[in-house]
């Protein structure tokens, strides 16, 4: 039944995603989520006997590991140096702004689900709120031929902030899974040290071993094998699988240097498959009763995240001396939230201490992803337009032609 359901989710996700994009110019993720909703237990999933349960956890763990590997390998140390302090400061501001705003807001509201305390729910939502969807932002930049300092800063920031988000999420999970403050510290240290150590060592072995594998197909086997092995070890030895996969990606890139393309390209080509699975599985958890009864929380999360990241990015960028065109727009144009947030929310369904609240979190994140992918796209367009960067690439070409 599970295999049939995965097949249905992928095909319906693909069809609805492509049709929605072609006919109504909607982001493809909207179609993917709707396909999942179609097969949720409250709709077609009920009669079909389909249910998102434990079998989805392994898929989510491995696929999120793939995404974490790609995020970890996104930049080299020298590239990070080239990006400069302004980008780092604005990204830190954006991430910490959204984290703090959601954490404080939800702690003050004090929502509890079953035995899950308000602070735990607030911490998890705050960690998820720090992510951004590069795909949605890239689509707008490409569609409107945006070019300029804000566009450049934006591209760098969307590539970096998910790395910070994954680190924060891993630390939050480690803290929540421990029983008290005194026990949390050694657990968090072990989660970080073991994950980074094994990930870095794995990257070295992977890069050296891949030199003896001339064919791309064999490299893909090695890549998937190492990621799945690390995810399995993380489960058995209780360290963070996401941090380990990120460290694996980072060290593979570090040791491979400019020769790293063949160690990333095969998995980059799987990225859309991963996101189709994330979004459709998230749709599968969709429960209308949960969404309707927590509509206030969904709106609150959306507003707190948006407000926090706008203010945070502005402060971060201004501290590094960024021009006004960047500091006043960059938080606004990074509103879209996507696959990484959904993957994180789905991962919570496998965390024993959060199982009671996981359904609510998945529904909050899914609903706000729909909101941010549609309204967020408008905000991105507005911000780039206000900065005078929409269509700048076309203007530059015309200017060149006339001279």
């Amino acid at each position, binding site marked *: 039944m599970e295999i049939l359901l995965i097949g249905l989710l992928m095909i319906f996700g693909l069809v609805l995603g492509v049709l929605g994009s072609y006919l109504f110019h909607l982001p493809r993720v909207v179609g993917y989520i709707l396909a999942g909703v179609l097969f949720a237990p409250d709709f077609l999933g009920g009669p079909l006997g389909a249910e998102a349960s434990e079998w989805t956890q392994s898929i989510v763990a491995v696929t999120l590991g793939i995404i974490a590997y790609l995020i970890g390998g996104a*930049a080299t140390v020298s590239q990070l140096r080239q990006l400069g302090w302004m980008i780092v400061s604005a990204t830190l501001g954006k991430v910490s702004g959204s984290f703090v705003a959601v954490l404080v807001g939800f702690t003050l509201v004090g929502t509890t689900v079953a035995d899950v305390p308000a602070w735990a729910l607030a911490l998890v939502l705050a960690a998820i709120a720090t992510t951004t969807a590069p795909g949605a932002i890239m689509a707008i930049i490409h569609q409107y031929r945006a070019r300029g300092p804000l566009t450049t800063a934006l591209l760098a920031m969307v590539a970096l902030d998910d790395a910070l988000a994954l680190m924060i999420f891993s630390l939050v999970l480690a803290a929540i899974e421990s029983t008290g403050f005194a026990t949390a510290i050694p657990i968090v240290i072990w989660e970080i040290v073991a994950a980074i150590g094994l990930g870095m060592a794995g990257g070295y072995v992977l890069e050296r071993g891949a030199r003896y594998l001339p064919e791309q197909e064999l490299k893909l086997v090695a890549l998937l094998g190492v990621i799945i092995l690390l995810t399995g070890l993380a489960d058995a030895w209780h360290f963070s699988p996401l941090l380990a996969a990120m460290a694996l990606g980072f060290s593979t890139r570090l040791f491979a240097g400019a020769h790293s393309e063949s160690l990333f390209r095969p998995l980059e080509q799987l990225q859309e498959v991963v996101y189709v699975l994330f979004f459709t599985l998230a749709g599968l958890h969709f429960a209308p009763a949960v969404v309707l009864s927590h509509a206030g929380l969904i709106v609150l999360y959306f507003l707190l995240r948006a407000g926090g990241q706008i203010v945070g990015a502005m402060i971060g960028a201004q501290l590094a001396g960024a021009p006004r065109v960047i500091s006043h727009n960059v938080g606004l144009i990074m509103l879209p939230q996507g696959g990484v947030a959904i993957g994180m929310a789905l991962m919570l369904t496998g965390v024993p201490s959060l199982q009671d609240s996981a359904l609510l979190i998945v529904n909050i994140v899914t609903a706000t992803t729909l909101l941010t992918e549609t309204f967020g796209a408008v905000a991105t367009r507005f911000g780039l337009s206000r900065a005078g960067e929409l269509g700048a690439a076309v203007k530059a070409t015309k200017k060149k032609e006339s001279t």
Partner: protein
Amino acid sequence: MKISEWLKTHPAKALTIAGESSLQDAARLLLDDPEGRDLFVLDADGKVCGHLGFWHVATLLLAELRPTLSLRELIERITLGTVADHMDDQVMCAGVDEDIDDILYQHDLFQQHLERRVEDIPVVDEQHRLLGVVRLTDLLRDAINTDNGTLTDEPEGGRK
């Protein structure tokens, strides 16, 4: 035929560049030679230390035109950097004493092309200094012009 002989009968210009050059310089060098598709990066001693292909240079400099980019490509689009930042530092080179018939097998040129789009095989001496290149187009031209080559074996009465 030894590669040393091949280089004499099929002279091809090897395009070389220094690692600290910009990608724009690399593009200009490639565009100036319509047949050149591969740049070989030389160190201060004239030894081959890297390779950069036309396709790689074009995708980096025209990244803005692509609708989707991976996170890695996003950072590359912004930082660009020098030739050394993007070159492939594991260049498969041939020696002058190798046999030209073995070159495709030994260097698995087709797999290299899939991964790195290599069309020129650099030929080096013992000190790894560049002596010339064996061009894929010359190998192909030679294969279809050889009497026992499969491409020229037309069936009797076949099209001439």
